[in-house]
């Protein structure tokens, strides 16, 4: 894809953000309040700027060495390439989620999913803010905005957590857990499991002599 962009082609879909590499023009950071930053478009733009910068830097480094491809991948630039790929894939995942929201018909559900998408975006990009500062995209104080936006989103999603978790509909037979069972009765389930466990059965699993000698002194 990068090669195609460098050759002057325009790529589309989730790779669309790479088109700006060619033009070297970066969008300006425009959010001034935490709730501005909590918007999907703003997160998308910031995330894209980070990823684009990381890709440009790493490709620049690759282009400036004369080492063989194996040497570059294994030793010289292994860490840079891994960081670049991970950031890119996280951004792609974010974009796919964001684009899929357009298909959601119900407006209330879409609202909650948008918050989830924004939260996921911030959760990923807050590990890469150094790239934003390095590229000159983030102004002073942007870190505070990001942290505050993160908190706003957490508070916003909080009332919807249980319905969202239940929307996965994982059956108890798959998620064998008293904590995460479908009724939420943690301790009752735990007791029930203890009562029916074969470890607590009076046949076979209780050692000889236990009932005669140990039980009376307990």
């Amino acid at each position, binding site marked *: 894809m990068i090669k195609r962009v460098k050759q002057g082609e325009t790529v589309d879909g989730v790779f669309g953000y790479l088109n700006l590499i060619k033009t070297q023009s970066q969008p300006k950071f425009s959010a001034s309040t935490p709730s501005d930053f909590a918007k999907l478009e703003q997160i998308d733009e910031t995330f894209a700027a980070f990823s684009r910068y990381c890709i440009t830097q790493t490709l620049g480094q690759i282009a400036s060495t004369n080492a063989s491809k194996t040497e570059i991948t294994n030793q010289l630039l292994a860490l840079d390439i891994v960081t670049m790929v991970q950031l890119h894939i996280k951004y792609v*995942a974010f974009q796919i989620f964001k684009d899929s929201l357009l298909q959601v018909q119900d407006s209330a559900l879409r609202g909650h999913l948008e918050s989830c998408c924004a939260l996921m975006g911030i959760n990923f990009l807050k590990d890469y803010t150094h790239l934003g500062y390095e590229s000159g995209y983030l102004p002073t104080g942007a870190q505070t905005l990001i942290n505050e936006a993160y908190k706003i989103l957490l508070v916003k999603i909080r009332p919807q*957590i249980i319905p969202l978790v239940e929307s996965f509909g994982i059956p108890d037979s798959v998620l064998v857990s008293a904590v995460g069972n479908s009724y939420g009765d943690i301790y009752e389930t735990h007791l029930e499991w203890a009562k029916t466990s074969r470890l607590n059965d009076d046949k076979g699993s209780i050692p000889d002599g236990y009932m005669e000698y140990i039980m009376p002194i307990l």
Partner: protein
Amino acid sequence: MKLVPLLATSIAFGVCHAFTIRKYNQLLVDIKSQKFELLDQMHHFTSGFKSVFSQFTMDGILSIRQSIGGAGYSAWSGLPYAIDDFSPQVTYEGDNTVMAQ
């Protein structure tokens, strides 16, 4: 703060899963008419997603274990099973440090 981002991200993983399956089905149709453009993208998505998602999920399970204290070690919480079941995935799905030959 620990669990909500995990929830949001796992919904995103579900969406990406559906997206990848859709692409794959499209690829199968395309291959029959000798078109292989999507093959490149499929490689891109699948190899990237598997390594990033499996690592994130493993970290997520550990984070859930820590957030429920000692109960996370008890079998009735279901987490030891989840950890045992999932931990090798990070290895066999590749964590991006596999060397080029």
